[in-house]
């Protein structure tokens, strides 16, 4: 494991170049979880995370899913260090994020690497206007005013919220609030962004806009994304990997196409997109389908091929 220093960004870049030169398939593991077990102090007998082992590469887009109460939120709180520093309990094992063991670094240090966006932006937004909201973390880290202004301008532009710079967060629509919440996370330029059902309070069009934005952060800026989402049908096409949890354990961890056709997801009681169900039925009866479809267009394409074949 590389030991990241304070200008860890530069080291990372050099490292990537080196990998390219060597044509080596080795990727930087940005998150590494080893034999993690955790129980909240209020109920120390009951382990809500059991023997979690997980490695996530830089630049991945991971969907984390599982029935309610399976430990998804607890797991992401372990990644950004809220556990064990804020929520105490029985914590066994190691969580290493960007080369830092969360046990040894305080939450504010981890927050430079991991940004967490909550389900409900109202719980996250605290300032009187959007500009102040975005400056908040930077001020706390002691950046000088010129730097802060520059950074805030940049983020407002990326998130396309320059027009609401001076609005109060509570006057904004749900979609705008979620944009501001994500923007406030981006100011510290974390490598990893974790979002806990970020679109569940939005209407479908609003949800898709936010997901497109998250996808853009992943593809264009190389951010590692971990997304908790129940509605697989709208996130499937963006993701590289699906991790499913049940009863505090990881029971499925595979690349998206393989994972989605695995029956485990259905057995867990998760909602499998209708197009995947249709694909499985077609496959069961011996229709030849070349690629596992992740979008409606993919499946339409495969059905068109079937229809032509029959012509």
């Amino acid at each position, binding site marked *: 494991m590389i030991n990241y220093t304070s200008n860890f960004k530069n080291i990372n870049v050099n490292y990537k170049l080196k990998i390219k030169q060597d044509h080596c398939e080795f990727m930087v593991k940005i998150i590494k979880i080893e034999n993690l077990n955790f129980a909240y102090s209020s109920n120390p007998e009951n382990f809500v995370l059991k023997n979690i082992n997980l490695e996530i590469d830089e630049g991945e887009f991971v969907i984390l899913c599982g029935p309610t109460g399976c430990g998804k939120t607890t797991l992401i709180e372990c990644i950004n260090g809220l556990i064990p520093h804020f929520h105490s309990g029985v914590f066994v094992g190691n969580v290493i994020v960007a080369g830092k063991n969360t046990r040894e670094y305080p939450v504010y240090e981890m927050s430079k690497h991991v940004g967490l966006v909550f389900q409900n932006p109202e719980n996250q937004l605290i300032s009187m206007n959007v500009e102040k909201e975005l400056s908040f973390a930077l001020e706390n880290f002691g950046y000088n005013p010129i730097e802060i202004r520059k950074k805030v301008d940049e983020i407002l532009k990326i998130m396309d919220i320059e027009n609401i710079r001076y609005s109060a967060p509570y006057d904004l629509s749900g979609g705008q609030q979620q944009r501001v919440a994500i923007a406030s996370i981006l100011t510290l330029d974390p490598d990893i962004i974790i979002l806990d*059902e970020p679109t569940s309070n939005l209407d479908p069009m609003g949800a898709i806009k936010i997901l497109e934005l998250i996808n853009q952060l992943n593809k264009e800026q190389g951010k590692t994304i971990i997304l908790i989402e129940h509605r697989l049908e709208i996130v499937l096409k963006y993701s590289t990997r699906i991790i499913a949890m049940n009863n505090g354990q990881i029971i499925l961890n595979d690349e998206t196409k393989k994972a989605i056709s695995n029956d485990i997801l259905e057995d867990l009681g998760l909602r499998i997109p209708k197009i995947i169900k249709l694909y499985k039925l077609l496959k069961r009866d011996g229709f030849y389908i070349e690629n596992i479809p992740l979008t409606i267009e993919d499946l339409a394409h495969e059905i068109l091929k079937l229809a032509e074949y029959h012509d």
Partner: protein
Amino acid sequence: MIECYNIKYTYDGINYALDDICLKIDNAEFVGIIGENGAGKTTLAKCINGLLRPQYGKILIDGEDISKFSVAQIAKKIGFVFQNSDHQIFEQTVEDEIKFGLKNLKFSPEEIEERLENIIKKLDLEKYRNISPFELSGGERKRVALASILCLDPEILILDEPTLGQDMKQKEYLVKLIENLRKKGKTIIIITHDIEFAAEYIPRIIVMAKGKIIADGPREIITQNNFILEKSSVILPQLAQLTKILKSYNIFKSFNCNFADVHNYYYELKKYLKKK
């Protein structure tokens, strides 16, 4: 029975959040209200349960004008479960949370105990009863909020986005619960963005946009009408989208079936492919 006559509501005196709504919902109906954020869905629900009083028009519940009743009086008839359960939950333990409403409606201690035990069993909350609701996950907290309303045994139940953060098992359980309530003659109104859920389970769908009702009818008709759903910024169910693409390639042209049922759809598709 709920009857709304030309109701209008404005928060700021300029824009109408509800603009001339007329609506009738019979006893034991199961109705879904869909529409984009800000369409007026929640405002309408809040007018029906008296939290907001419309500036124009009137609302009758079982034939009686609700403007003469207090919110507390209406609460005996209409249960409202908020979208964000944190707006509703505040007690120290799950048990206290459920008891709160019962105590307020002045039920006898025996009655309270009985209803509490009943609802805890029904919603599978036994293992959480003595812990703080705030220690629970978002989905579980929603169930606590639902329990605290259900135990009041309201005639009309309004659920604002009940499927958020709920997995399929919980959703199916919710549907079963609703079916049972309907058998007892209760009216259920669900506000939702979840078009797949609505297409699958809710028989009557009302579509709202910009404070108006733009469509009201059985799910088979509403979920296939692209124009209505586009106007309300709701997205077509996946299988309806698939059919639309296929039809644009002149395949499957006369195809018409229930988009909520994959097996039915597959059956039709297979028939078509075999015929070719």
